[in-house]
């Protein structure tokens, strides 16, 4: 049997990779991908906990997270499209007119 901690550990690793990716990648879409990765990492935790606990709640939460992720993806990509139309660039480092 694989212990619960392993799943949680894997989830933590993925979450970390996603989190780090958000601040080292510059392409808006890649950043978004990293965020999706983080959500998935959490999903893994939830599913693992749910299964080990024998409680279906966690999995339902994952279901809802996926819906949210879909909605977020739609809106997020729309935002990215709209900024790309104006800037012709996906580099978030270029969007720094608002500062200080």
């Amino acid at each position: 049997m694989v212990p619960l901690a392993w799943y949680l550990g894997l989830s933590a690793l993925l979450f970390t990779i996603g989190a780090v990716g958000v601040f080292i990648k510059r392409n808006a879409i890649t950043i978004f991908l990293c965020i999706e990765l983080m959500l998935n990492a959490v999903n893994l935790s939830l599913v693992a906990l749910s299964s080990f606990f024998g409680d279906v709640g966690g999995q339902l939460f994952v279901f809802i997270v996926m819906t949210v992720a879909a909605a977020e993806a739609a809106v997020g990509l729309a935002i990215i499209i709209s900024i790309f139309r104006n800037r012709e660039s996906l580099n978030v480092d270029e969007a720094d007119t608002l500062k200080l």
Partner: protein
Amino acid sequence: MEQILFAVFAFIAIASALNILLQRNPLYSALSLIGTLASLSALYMMLRAQFIAAIQIIVYAGAIMVLFVFVIMLLNEPKDVPVIEKAKGLRFLAIPFAGLLIAETFYVIRTVPDIQMPPLPAQEVERAVGTTWSIGTSLFTDYLLPFEVTSVLILMAVVGAMVLARREGD
């Protein structure tokens, strides 16, 4: 056996995840993420969360990621623009931050008691936790309201995406 499987899928998940970071082209990153999602789906299966595993592939990898790839293709960034990178120092924070975050989460996970997955029930295996039946039952009882509210969420997302992404003059 299970541990080996876990190791394999975990390895794929992590490797693909890292690949997201290593790729320059967002398209490859997206494809790597699909790799991770797929291996997670496999892990879900191992966790007896069949329904989640299924929609992981269908909804996530299938629908959401396709949307991503589609948008990446749509927004074909000109190749010749110089790569602007400000705040170069951030990448040096990657290792320490990652290390710390892992250390902290692992510190917590270390304390998790070693419990076993509950054995499958003798009867009505098809109603065990993680099956479509259990999910569906819950969805329309305990989680009825969240489920209904997600529809509001999606509706709103549609409106939002439409208003932002549609062309001028529409």
